[in-house]
């Protein structure tokens, strides 16, 4: 199916495979961050393509907040078994038990910020010098300035004003001891590109991306799932709705959309028509205008 005119999806795929191979070649101990969400599933699919017929030459790393959707965890284990991949799991609960962080309290309590500490601990524990992530530049304005190869200092911090210039496709992953890199193979993908690719490549995804019945409640215009650790305000009442996830994060901050989309085709059609950004339903971004930049500076995903 070779034509001299590459489609945009072919170009994005070729670029992402190139970036993943570059990370595997330039770093001694790379890892790939895996959340069970569609972006990390696509990234892992590309990694399998990049090294076939050899196995993916690095482990995946999942930071389990303890607030994940059960379907996501089941899917993670299923996918690893099916593809023969290795996924290391580290738990935010352990970080809390060690007294390194304190659980947030109140209605909007979330472990979203806490997981950065667990992540940096895991990077130190395994001496990872590169962590690939499924972050995309179109997701959020601070991410729009992110490099493919993004430097982190010995404290795991990002300095957005002092980023290395990145030209052509020559990536500079040189670093000092203790520093590491975040690498983003999907930088140039949009939400629609990810879904089109899932469709074309017939990639399996967790069931919660498709329409299903769930008990939800409405907070500030966002539908959130009920769970034992979710505190409802007196004015909030659980109802049953047909919903699906547009992004998958913690239950505490993942807004669900009312949807009847039951196939990837339906989802593509829905995404193409939607007028709200993907992260518009993410409670973690609503904390302030620079919520993402602040978290990224601290070493967030």
């Amino acid at each position, binding site marked *: 199916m070779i034509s001299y005119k590459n*489609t945009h999806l072919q170009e994005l795929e070729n670029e992402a495979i190139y970036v993943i191979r570059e990370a*595997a070649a330039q770093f001694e101990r790379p890892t790939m961050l895996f959340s069970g969400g569609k972006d990390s599933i696509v990234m892992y699919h590309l990694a399998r393509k990049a090294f076939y017929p050899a196995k993916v030459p690095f482990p995946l790393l999942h930071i389990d907040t303890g607030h994940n959707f059960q379907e996501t965890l089941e899917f993670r284990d299923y996918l690893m078994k099916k593809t023969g991949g290795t996924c290391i799991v580290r738990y935010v609960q352990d970080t809390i038990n060690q007294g390194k962080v304190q659980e947030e309290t109140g209605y909007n309590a979330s472990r979203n910020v806490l997981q950065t500490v667990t992540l940096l601990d895991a990077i130190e524990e395994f001496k990872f010098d590169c962590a690939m992530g499924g972050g995309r530049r179109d997701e959020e304005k601070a991410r*729009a300035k992110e490099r493919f190869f993004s430097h982190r200092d010995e404290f795991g911090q990002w300095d957005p004003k002092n980023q290395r*210039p990145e030209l052509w496709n020559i990536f500079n992953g040189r670093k000092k001891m203790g520093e590491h890199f975040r690498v983003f193979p999907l930088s140039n993908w949009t939400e629609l*590109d990810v879904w089109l690719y899932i469709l074309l490549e017939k990639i399996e995804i967790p069931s919660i991306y498709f329409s299903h019945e769930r008990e939800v409640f409405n907070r500030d215009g966002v539908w959130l799932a009920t769970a034992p650790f979710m505190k409802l305000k007196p004015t909030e009442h659980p109802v049953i709705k047909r919903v699906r996830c547009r992004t998958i994060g913690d239950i505490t901050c993942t807004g669900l959309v009312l949807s009847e989309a039951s196939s990837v085709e339906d989802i593509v059609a829905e995404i193409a028509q939607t007028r709200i950004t993907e992260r518009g339903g993410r409670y973690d971004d609503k904390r302030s205008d620079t919520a993402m930049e602040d978290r990224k500076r601290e070493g967030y995903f």
Partner: protein
Amino acid sequence: MSTNLVIDMKTNINETIGSYTQMELLRFTTAGSVDDGKSTLIGRLLYDSKAIFEDQLKALEKASMLKGDETINLALLTDGLKAEREQGITIDVAYRYFHTPRRKFIIADTPGHIQYTRNMVTGASTANLALILVDARHGIVEQTRRHAFIASLLQIPHMVVCINKMDLVSYSEERFNEITQQFLEIATKLDIKDIRFVPICALHGDNIVKRSTQMPWYEGPTLMWLLETIYISSDTNFIDARFPVQYVIRPNSKEFHDYRGYAGRVASGIFRKGDKIKVLPSGYTSTIVQIDIFENSINEAVAGQSVSIVLADDIDISRGDMIVKENNLPVISQDVEMMFCWFNERPLQIKGKYILRHTTNEVKCMINDVRYKIEMNTLQRNETDKHVGMNDIGRMSVRTQKPIFFDSYRKNRNTGSVILIDEITNETIAAGMII
């Protein structure tokens, strides 16, 4: 002319999805300062192609109101970092995405001031097209000249010059022609292959997506039409077969016991099954027996494709080597002349040692001499002042520790480009375009 930029999904979902999967990708760069309407133009392109979402627009309205702006400040959309929003300037390269039914676009949006020359160079390095804005009232200014120069230095194949704010010069055809003429005079001194001119008014949307009713004298295409249709397939070098080896795949499994694949992205040209090849620097020759993409074997790999190549002979090949065809070799040399842009606060050191990265190869190098610097105000060469600091552009000669295999940047953007890295700080301190 295309005015229907958003596909109506209800008509035929399968057909629509089919067309989405056939879109081409166009990367373009813009450069400009706060007041020349660049943000307005980008905002207009994003808005008209429905790439700005309702929640973004609401956030923008709120932010503009709080800052006391009378209209929605589209610059707030493009300036992503806290420091940028505070200072009201764009510091870094920001990437924006939108699509129409024909193409997906990536905008590398860069600041236009002289102190951000390095950001402009960065944004230009991957662009197929440069979008240059000229304020119709001011005509060609120093900044216009600089942008055109950088686009030519980085060999961006296409240039679209938008003469903006035509409403402020009464939509005058004479003024448009005058500026076009001035620009063409500059262009004769530069290396630009394809230039187009469009009179626009970004604020009101004239000739952006819809044809202007104010300028019936202009018979050319709208800006969006140009972006959607400029022919880019021929910009790729399909002649000189170059394959920098990125990674060696050895499965060590029972099923693929003897498999040894050379993984990489074809930098240029075409490789076919059965091709006689030569490996640099060793000089060994062999034949391609298999080209793989995941579980599929293909007959040919063309420029841009990430593949894995299997050879007939068991020869020693590692990352940084280059697979080429016997009858078409790159230049193999330790002495390299290149145009450069300096990125770092620490000035260039003549006779200083640096790390040079070229394709997947890395060698040490020494800067032998600075031939000249370009005075960015006049674009004249300065052969006497050898002090090179941040944002300076010029020509230098470099000696590498081992030979590298390259083509001229003009002929081959992928095998003609290098970056220099500081050995101590590991920072990327310069970009080089081989002459």
